[in-house]
């Protein structure tokens, strides 16, 4: 048993942390927020040059040779600075989908494009009435000869408005909520029949509703067997999002702690009040407990035992989600009025963490998924 990082891991962690600290200040981020796409393509190119876009992928696929643990290191550091660039949608979700299910041609073209920073992608899975159930797929795919077309609508596709290509779950057979019969497809976002409505999300990011009307589509992986791939991809997404949330929580905690030490009320530092002290201990506990759950899930998400993987990931999502909610709310509450303003970073962390609670499934959804594993 060893929970220490290798030298290679430490290197990437320090590199990203340093970048966030030096080159991604709150002011810089505020400027990026105002950009049309909600992120900065020149920053993305920098990530590509530094090799960060290849972190989760094997060396033979052109990657860094890392996995969920390394990805978590990157994402946690991104969380510290609330980095806006679409790492989750392009690298973690789309990249892993390609790595898990892509043909060698698809990897050579698309995965390489992602790693190189030339290609932005996203995975479109949620539908208007699907809730969090990945198997509830109404979008359909039709085969004509060797080619497929997909029709249907996907909603709240994170990073969807800037994606060049989309990975879309669609039904090739089976009933509306059957796991069997779901297939994954790569669809060009500019293709005929694809309509993208982009919009801002609560955290300042971007998402899109995307409709497909007989849009040309290329099969990714085996026909009808897409659910297992998607389920696994989303689990990797959860671990990465949890890591980012941990960074956001830890920053919220540290900033609140610092404020409690300096801000005075009734003639003394707020942090000298015992009630505040215990609240800070609770916040600290949320952060450290979440770190344990993140370590656990980033190790076990790679398990070949699906039950072990799902328990680890859903357990972590439940736990870290609760912690994120508590930390976000308390950071605002303890800051008082100033915590309610756009001017301060605290409110931005609050919204990022609020979004985290709902991403890839609510607490209720994952508690049930955990319990379903027995």
């Amino acid at each position: 048993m060893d929970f220490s990082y290798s030298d290679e891991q430490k290197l990437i962690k320090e590199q990203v942390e340093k970048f966030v600290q030096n080159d991604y200040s709150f002011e810089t981020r505020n400027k990026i927020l105002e950009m049309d796409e909600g992120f900065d393509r020149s920053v993305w190119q920098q990530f590509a040059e530094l090799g960060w876009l290849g972190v989760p992928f094997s060396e033979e696929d052109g990657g860094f040779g890392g996995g969920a643990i390394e990805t978590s290191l990157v994402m946690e550091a991104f969380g510290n600075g609330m980095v806006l660039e679409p790492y989750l949608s392009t690298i973690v979700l789309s990249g892993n989908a390609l790595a898990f299910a892509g043909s060698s041609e698809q990897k050579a073209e698309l995965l390489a494009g992602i790693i190189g920073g030339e290609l932005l992608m996203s995975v479109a899975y949620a539908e208007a009435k699907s809730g969090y159930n990945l198997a509830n797929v109404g979008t359909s795919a039709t085969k004509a000869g060797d080619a497929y077309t997909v029709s249907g609508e996907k909603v709240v596709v994170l990073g969807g408005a800037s994606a060049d290509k989309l990975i879309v779950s669609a039904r090739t057979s089976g009933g509306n909520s059957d796991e069997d019969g779901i297939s994954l497809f790569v669809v060009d976002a500019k293709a005929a029949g694809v309509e993208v409505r982009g919009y801002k999300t609560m955290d300042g990011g971007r998402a899109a509703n995307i409709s497909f009307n007989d849009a040309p589509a290329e099969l990714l992986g085996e026909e009808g067997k897409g659910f297992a791939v998607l389920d696994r991809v989303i689990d990797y997404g959860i671990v990465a999002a949890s890591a980012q949330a941990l960074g956001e929580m830890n920053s919220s905690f540290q900033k609140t702690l610092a404020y409690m030490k300096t801000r005075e009320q009734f003639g003394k530092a707020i942090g000298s009040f015992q009630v505040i002290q215990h609240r800070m201990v609770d916040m600290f506990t949320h952060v450290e407990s979440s770190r344990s759950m993140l370590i656990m899930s980033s190790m076990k998400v790679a398990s070949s035992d699906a039950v072990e993987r799902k328990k680890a990931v859903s357990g972590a999502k439940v736990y870290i989600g609760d912690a994120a909610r508590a930390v976000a709310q308390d950071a605002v509450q303890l800051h008082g009025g100033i915590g309610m303003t756009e001017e301060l970073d605290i409110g931005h962390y609050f919204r990022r963490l609020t979004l985290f609670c709902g991403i890839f499934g609510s607490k209720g959804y994952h508690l049930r998924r955990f319990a379903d594993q027995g």
Partner: protein
Amino acid sequence: MNIDYSPEELEFQQEVRAWFKENLPEDLKQKNMRGEMLTREEIISWQKLLGSAGYLVVSWPPEHGGPDWNATQRYIFDAERAAAGAPVGFSMGIIMLGPVLMAFGSPEQKEKYLPKIESAEDWWCQGYSEPGAGSDLASLKTQAVLDGDDYVINGTKIWTTYGHYANRCFCLVRTDNECKPQAGISFILIDDMSAPGIEIQPIVSIDGEHHLNQVFFDNVRVPKENLVGQEGQGWTIAKYLLTHERTTIAGVADSKLNLANIKRIAAENEVDGKALIDDEQTRLDIAQAEINLMQLEFTNFRTLADTAAGRAPGPESSLLKIKGTDTQQELSELKVKMAGYYAFPWHTEGFVGPEDFAYATQTYNFLRASTIYGGSTEVQKNVVAKMLLGLR
């Protein structure tokens, strides 16, 4: 012991209900139910309509244009107002300044200001908090120095709700630096928010909207007649307002409408093959919120019954603000949970998903303030521990 309204009260209820049914504009109702922000014009024209019906300054005594209702009637009115889907509107002038002027104001002040509150012509904002002072009013720094017949005001106020909508402002200012901090505070009226030397800086809050402001005063001249009461009486006036009866502080009526709305949404919206209400956890979350609201309503009734019977409200009344804001936050969070992915799109982007969810996140974000302003939950607990439980 009984829980029923008297025949007269029931008749009153019908009367009020009918008025709202007839007079509340449908678009205003829909916006309010969705949690959407109203424009300045919408609010003012609605308040003028209320004013013209004698329904605006309902807590005022008849000699100042109030309807001479008792506490129960005021409660019924507010319940019907909320149930009809009507917004609260702006009320600083009605709830805060009015009672102050009646108790401490000169005859001239009463004559000059009260009628324009009653008719919704004036929009008053409040200048209490200052940067760095928070709940600690005794430490405020904005100065008012007498210079001839004017006070000259310098300093800044923060968290001024709808300061950019208001034309007038009542302020706590420091008129004496020598004495004990609380004894040097005075209560003063600023007639014109567009006067020279006043600058209003917007503060955007985490719901993405502009409710709050910081107001800067740079040698702002105010005639000395605008002082309310005596110099140094500001602290007394501020405390007077805190103990002033407010049977609607718990926000029961609006929370009941919210809950009813949530139940309707849960029945109408289908997710993953079934109505939200058929999801066991959503169903039980709603049940728990309804039970919590039941509690709040009956605690409020107890206070109301005491007030109506001419008794001082019991100790339970001090908990209404804490529990009331808890419930508001709980309901807003429930709606966010029910919205699922549709909680993500920002409300400024129009209806990306079901209209019912479009403002869920905005409301949730905005209501984080409810446990901060007006005496944070932590400060409220300090007060209860000291005053009611005798712990110090």
